[in-house]
């Protein structure tokens, strides 16, 4: 258990939640609810805190809780911390959200029937992650009812120790062990001896579950406060692509490499690797120009403005294995918010 994992599991976002004015039937309107929401949690789970505070002022009808931020309905199946990282480019503290109990926007948001929907969304993501890592979802699908309840409970309660104990039964640590080995070799800086090379390991590729939320801008902004607002979900490309990692002696795979590999349409020189081509050409990363108008790097039509994971913006040279091992969500996905600057002539709004 690393120190970073503890911090991630304790991560919380201060929310100031206002009841939407159309649902206020009393004067004066109820004060906003102040909630410290777990980063790894999901917004609908806050209903147990919000319902008591707002129920006396709600109009008659059936409760179906949903949230919005500046008019944008929030996708409940995205962890709270990821929503915050994506939508508050300049962190807003507290984060002001609006809660609704009526008028669910079912044409935009998937239906949510309380905690069970959130739980099954989580389990299905875990199942998908297991497939990515192991090539099958057997261990998740064969989870006992007891383990399922305990695993979900550990996520609900932010209990990292219980989580680690139950999650270890899923045997999803294969890539974790490998990349811990990679980290060791990077840190020690000792080249691997030929005897360490496993024949089957050469053929084997590691796949890492990644969900990337891509936001492209075509204007320059130096300060995050000047960043344009994400006011509809069509401005965000949700990319659900695993990262395939091949062991290469003496070379570590950086966060920068991972992001570019997931986005071959913006970083074409990495494209053939994502097609699973067995012949991996050695790619030399030229020094990327900070001048967007530069004629150098004509193949790179985009520039990474920032990559945000669990509320931090790691240096892009950091080993990807460290990012994965320490900043992964409980369903074994690494959620990354990426902002790309695309030159004006190439972007169509």
């Amino acid at each position, binding site marked *: 258990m690393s120190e970073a994992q503890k911090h991630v599991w304790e991560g919380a976002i201060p929310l100031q939640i206002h009841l939407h004015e159309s649902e206020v039937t009393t004067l004066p309107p109820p004060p906003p609810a102040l909630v410290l929401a777990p980063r790894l949690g999901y917004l609908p789970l806050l209903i147990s805190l919000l319902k008591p505070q707002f129920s006396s002022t709600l109009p008659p009808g059936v409760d179906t809780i949903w949230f919005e931020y500046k008019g944008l309905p929030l996708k409940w199946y995205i962890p709270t911390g990821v929503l915050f990282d994506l939508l508050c480019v300049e962190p807003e503290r507290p984060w002001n959200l609006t809660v609704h109990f009526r008028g669910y926007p079912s044409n935009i948001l998937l239906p949510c029937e309380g905690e069970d929907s959130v739980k099954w969304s989580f389990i299905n993501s875990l199942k998908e992650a297991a497939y990515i890592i192991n090539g099958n979802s057997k261990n998740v699908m064969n989870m006992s009812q007891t383990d399922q309840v305990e695993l979900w409970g550990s996520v609900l309660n932010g209990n990292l120790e219980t989580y680690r104990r139950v999650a270890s039964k899923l045997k999803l640590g294969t890539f974790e062990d490998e990349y811990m080995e990679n980290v060791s070799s990077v840190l020690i800086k000792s080249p691997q001896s030929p005897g360490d090379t496993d024949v089957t390991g050469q053929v084997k590729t590691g796949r890492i579950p990644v969900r990337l939320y891509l936001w492209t801008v075509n204007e320059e902004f130096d300060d995050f406060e000047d960043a344009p607002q994400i006011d509809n979900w069509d401005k965000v490309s949700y990319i659900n692509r695993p990262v395939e990692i091949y062991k290469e002696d003496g070379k570590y795979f950086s966060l920068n490499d991972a992001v570019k590999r997931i986005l071959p349409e913006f970083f074409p020189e990495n494209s053939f690797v994502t097609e699973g081509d067995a012949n991996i050409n050695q790619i030399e990363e030229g020094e990327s120009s900070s001048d967007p108008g530069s004629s150098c790097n004509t193949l790179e*039509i985009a520039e990474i403005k920032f990559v945000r994971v669990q509320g931090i913006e790691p240096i892009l040279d950091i080993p990807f294995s460290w990012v994965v091992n320490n900043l992964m969500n409980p369903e074994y996905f690494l959620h990354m918010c990426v902002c790309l600057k695309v030159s004006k002539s190439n972007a169509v709004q």
Partner: protein
Amino acid sequence: MDLQGAVKDIIAWDGTLSSSDFSLSAHTFSEKWKRFNPSFPPWQWIPCLKHHLVASHKVEGYLSLENMCHIKSSEEEESDRSLTWKEESNISQREEPFDNAALVCPEHEVNQYDFHIVYSATYRVPVLYFRSYHGDGQLLPFDEIEKDLPGHSAKLRSESKWTFISHEEHPYLNRPWYKLHPCGTSDWMKLLFNGDSSLNKKDFVIEQYLVSWFSAIGLVVGLKMPLEMLDTVVSNNS
């Protein structure tokens, strides 16, 4: 030796596709559908690159079949739910008295369906997404969609511990759609191709993948495929 190499190819194959092979297979499927299903709307390739970028990378996309109509009539309800799919988009071009009957008889509800075949990078197989709506554009809840499904699908759904149809967000359209779970696809696609020793060329397998895939998947949602689409002789001649 070439034959043995090809056999090795098939045996080692895990039933999956790469993203570019999906595009290739989608083209073959779309052409065959157009050829053997002329009365139905075509499967169209929808590129989904949001920016017009000059890039060497192949543009990703998905196949789309839209405005399929499922007409619910009392006769069909009495029969064993053989679905009748009619083309809505050409309704103005047809002169059959049936259309007049549809207009005159409001008790015949018409549910429209959109189907998309999207590549899953996780499972490396195609995935069928669909949604359904009334003639006025209002989305159908799942219990109404369930009535439109063939009987064996409804039975399978009730028996399965893990649902095989779930409500999820369309990966490109940011809207709720229904999705057939793809997690077992590579296993049965592998079985499907291994069973036929004549299909031992890798290129052919890739090209034919989506046709074979749809012959099984389409049945789950009641979309029948003419057997001619599976005819390998025709494919070889073309």
